[in-house]
């Protein structure tokens, strides 16, 4: 299918448009963060400013549009810069792990033989480890911190892409080699690579889309558990760990502090949902069986 056709269809599917709009919204917030929520200290923009030292969260008011969470951290600020963090995590983790996956999958399928066997065994080994637990172990070793979390996510996140890429390449390898052998004589590796990559890239892209959402969720979970972003860092998951003690609310009104949970929680949900919707729509568009109608 032509790219222009794909783009057009992406924009006509209601759900995918919804997804695109949300991602776009978050992107705008992330890009214009310094203007929307100017940092107190320009060198440390990810430190959420505190309007005091109160333990209990305060509801939205004139000073803090979204209220403050435990320790008087401004929620609004956290949300704005949190979107930057989310995109950072998403792009870096998904970007790098996808590249690793593409690389491993392609050369493994291309060269085949014992090399392929070994690579697949290694992939299997990595795949057989419970993701969150492995990430926990890795951060226990490397220490806490968002960058360590990203390393953990990358280290344990490339396998799916590798497998997918490998099966795509194998499919094409079966077809193209025959043609290539005749047409190109000596077999131009570069042309084959380009052709192979271009054709196999779509399922990988779909997968990458979905992983944008799931990676951010996992990173948020790790931050929530306390092994990711440090306290006071502008990360949605981290902000929710502040909310933990307050979700039961105050005397008489259990929902007093709903905003400490709901606001960052909704952000994570929407971020992930939108990428999933885009990925879903993408997949439906590229599904050859649905095209035949």
């Amino acid at each position, binding site marked *: 299918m032509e790219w222009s056709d794909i783009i057009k269809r992406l924009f006509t599917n209601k759900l995918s448009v919804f997804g695109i709009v949300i991602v776009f919204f978050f992107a705008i917030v992330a890009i214009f963060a310094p203007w929307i929520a100017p940092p107190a200290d320009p060198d440390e923009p990810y430190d959420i400013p505190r309007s005091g030292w109160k333990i209990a969260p305060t509801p939205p008011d004139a000073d803090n549009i979204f209220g403050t969470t435990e320790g008087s951290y401004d929620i609004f600020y956290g949300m704005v810069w949190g979107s930057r963090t989310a995109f950072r995590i998403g792009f870096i983790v998904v970007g790098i792990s996808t590249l690793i996956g593409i690389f491993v999958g392609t050369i493994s399928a291309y060269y085949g033989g014992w090399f392929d066997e070994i690579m697949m065994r290694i992939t299997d080994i990595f795949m*057989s*480890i419970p*993701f*969150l637990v492995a990430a926990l172990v890795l951060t*226990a070793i490397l220490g806490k911190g968002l960058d360590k979390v990203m390393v953990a996510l990358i280290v344990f996140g490339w396998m799916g892409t590798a497998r997918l890429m490998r099966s795509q390449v194998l499919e094409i390898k079966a077809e193209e080699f025959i043609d290539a052998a005749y047409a190109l004589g000596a077999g131009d590796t570069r042309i084959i690579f380009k052709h192979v990559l271009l054709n196999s890239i779509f399922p990988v892209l779909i997968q990458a889309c979905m992983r944008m959402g799931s990676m951010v969720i996992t990173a948020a979970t790790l931050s929530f558990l306390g092994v990711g972003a440090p306290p006071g860092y502008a990360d949605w998951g981290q902000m929710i760990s502040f909310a933990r003690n307050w979700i039961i609310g105050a005397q008489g009104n259990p929902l007093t502090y709903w905003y400490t949970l709901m606001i960052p929680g909704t952000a994570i949900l929407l971020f*992930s949902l939108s990428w999933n919707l885009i990925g879903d729509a993408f997949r439906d568009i590229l599904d050859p069986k649905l095209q035949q109608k």
Partner: protein
Amino acid sequence: MLMMLGPYQRVATYVQDPTQLKGGDLDLLINKYGLDDPFYMQYGRWLDGLLHGDLGWSEAAGAPVVEAIFDRFPATLELAILAVIPVIMGGIWLGVFSAVHHNDFWDHTTRVFSTVGWSFPTFVFGLIILMIFYGVLGWTPPGRLSNWALELKNTAQFTVFTDMNILDGILNGNISFALDSLRHLVAPVFTLAVVWWAFILRITRSSMLETLRKDYIRTARAKGVKENIVINKHARRNALIPVVTVAGPMVLGLLGGIVTVETVFGYRGLGLLAYETATRLDYAGILGIAMYFGGILVLINLIVDVSYAFIDPRIRLE
């Protein structure tokens, strides 16, 4: 076999690091645990311990790792069983239903639910449930048991058979105990199940849709087979084959979910232990747990492989 290698391999890398990180600190401790011995010696010692059933001492639990694990295991098992059963039964049934009523109102609803469920971060969902059903309604408190039940459990009047509270409650003839335990389990089970329910539903649905397009379904109809038999006998079994394939990775994710859910709900099981050991940098503890989980995974994968052969005769005969 090779998956056994997994946990070991991981451990090999990690055991090396503690030397770098802890070094400098308490020299006594280093000497005592032989942490400045060359890596292969440490690894060898660890393996040796493993073979003797000794995984070291967990600071976070204040007990030998092995003991801590076995102490917490039944709680997690109870949680897992209660979650997995509705996930598999419900997810598959709904997936089939949704595929059969393709593009109906119901189908669209289930699809939306499935996508949203998959996008919902477990811990947020758990917290919301806690907020509403405990904070507002007081129905589902955190932890495993209410205070009165906990007290009762520790007395001689109550025999602990399995340490799985609902079961024990029934076996002791104490229904209110069992019910109390159930009350504490509802929320974590639900939270754990939702995400994976959405996942199974999705996979089952798409697999079922594809299967219904196959030629042999047309043949079955041409024989005069009733439609519900076509769906349940002819289509479903074939549609389940790819679902079984993802069962393995699903369990993987489920284990991660267990950590989150237990932490959110203060449920005293392996997941919570994992959290405690990880945040306190208790290496022996977290490694032990990771190993244990790895072992469980191997077991699950074995079961999956066996059921594969059960469903698909083509695999059986190889």
